[in-house]
């Protein structure tokens, strides 16, 4: 402590003063001019609530939303990984046509705002896909069954399954561009000498990729992929614009129903922060540990 205090220099005090003024002003204006009535006590019941009808505890709006966000992130993360790996390999392909196709897809996704991409994909692709596969009827069929707990665990409310699917598809398509770039960078970061060595012991291009390049690229690619996964969780909030029932959307609903604007948004921001920051800490620690080994 003594040590710590000794290290503090005068600009530190200035910073502290500025911060105190800033937050003090916020506090004063909420309490004074705005007349806002805080109702923090209601927030916990919107995370886990006591159902007055069913007489049991249940996951209320915010927790439902968080669960949906987690589900969507995991599923679209997996899908994006698959698509992105294909895309990344295609970007390094020897065939010009394949390279150009991959490049076109990628440039489109990277140069158009996510909001626009989400709307385009939603109206053009996922709705058509869901109709074509007749997912809605199928999902409703399951929702009507008695024992659908397992389905519900993995996919949430089955009646909303199509919206989950379109959310997952839209997000995965969107993120696959970034995953593709990471995979490509990983492949290209393998020194030329490695490929030459592989070739000079007679390996074919496939063998070279399979036994020499990809195993090494995978290792390099894991940390940026982990970061991309965190970005994906954050980007998933955009899905609220196409009414996918994830955390941000549920918060909008909560605000519309209860008018707890400040409390609800601060809580939601805190949820995202805890999830994303927690994950980034965990990933950093894992990375450090694997480095040591």
């Amino acid at each position, binding site marked *: 402590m003594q040590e710590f205090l000794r290290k503090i220099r005068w600009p530190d005090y200035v910073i502290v003063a500025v911060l105190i003024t800033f937050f003090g002003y916020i506090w004063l204006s909420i309490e004074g001019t705005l007349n806002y009535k805080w109702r923090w006590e209601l927030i916990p019941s919107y995370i886990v609530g006591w159902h007055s009808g069913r007489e049991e505890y249940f996951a209320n709006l915010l927790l439902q939303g968080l669960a949906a966000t987690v589900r969507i992130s995991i599923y679209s993360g997996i899908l994006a990984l698959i698509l992105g790996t294909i895309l990344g390999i295609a970007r390094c392909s020897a065939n010009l046509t394949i390279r150009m196709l991959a490049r076109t897809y990628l440039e489109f996704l990277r140069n158009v705002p996510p909001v626009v991409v989400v709307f385009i994909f939603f109206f053009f692709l996922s709705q058509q896909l869901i109709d074509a596969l007749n997912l809605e009827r199928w999902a409703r069929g399951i929702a009507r069954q008695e024992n659908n707990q397992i389905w519900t665990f993995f996919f949430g409310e089955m009646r909303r399954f199509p919206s989950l699917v379109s959310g997952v598809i839209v997000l995965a398509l969107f993120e696959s561009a970034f995953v593709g770039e990471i995979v490509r960078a990983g492949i290209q970061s393998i*020194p030329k*000498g*490695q490929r*030459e*060595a*592989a*070739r*000079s*012991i*007679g*390996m*074919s*291009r496939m*063998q070279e990729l399979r*036994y*020499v390049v990809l*195993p*090494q690229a995978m*290792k390099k690619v894991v940390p940026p992929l982990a970061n991309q996964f965190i970005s994906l969780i954050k980007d998933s909030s955009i899905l609220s614009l196409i009414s996918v029932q994830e955390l941000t959307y549920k918060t909008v609903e909560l605000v519309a129903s209860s008018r707890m604007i400040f409390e609800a948004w601060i809580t939601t921001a805190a949820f995202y922060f805890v999830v994303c920051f927690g994950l980034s800490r965990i990933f950093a620690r894992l990375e450090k540990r694997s480095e040591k080994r």
Partner: protein
Amino acid sequence: MTQPSPMIEVTNLDKYYGTFHALKNIDLTVHQGEKVVICGPSGSGKSTLIRCFNGLEWHNSGRLVIDGIEVYKDAKEIRELRQEVGMVFQQFNLFPHLTVLENLMIGPMKVRKITKTQAEETARNYLDRVHIPEQADKYPAQLSGGQQQRVAIARSLCMETRIMLFDEPTSALDPEMINEVLDVMVELADTGMTMVVVTHEMGFARKVADTMVFMEAGQIVEISPPEQFFTNPSSERCRLFLNQILEH
């Protein structure tokens, strides 16, 4: 010196990088069991030449015949060629994600499709030959440069190649480790392997070379037996170069 069958025949070979003329009208023959040492100033095309020998680079015109097979740019055939021609790089280029043993076994197993036990036996055999049998289970990063380069040599040997190419195998090594690699190469030369070595280690060249080649600016300036090369090189440029190298 009797002349056994030629292993590498280069006739009139030219090579461009874009518009840059990297190899100019190269003629060279390497016979079975012959040891050729190539030297010359930086950028003179030494690496480019031996990289042509196992198809890492493509010549633009002229003929290149390896072990009786003419080399064209065709993926499948060239792969077969590479199984005959081993290459040791300046930067070792071991596979960092595999142990030493796996580095040695992956080629024979995946390319030559021999069984794991057999591959392991060969691998251990060659590890013995390069004097590091005890390092089999380490990863390349855990070895010194000299040890890594010996593993790289063993990896090439495991493919049971008939020709070995070395591209400055000791120039990335600390002075203390150069010897251990050169020793292994001398031993290898004694087994009768056909070797083409790019190096500036003139002590080694004196010891093993049958033929010395001096390149400059993409051309072969001098081909001569080592006795003549070191005592009385025919070109002035070559003499200057040797002076530079041997002075310190």
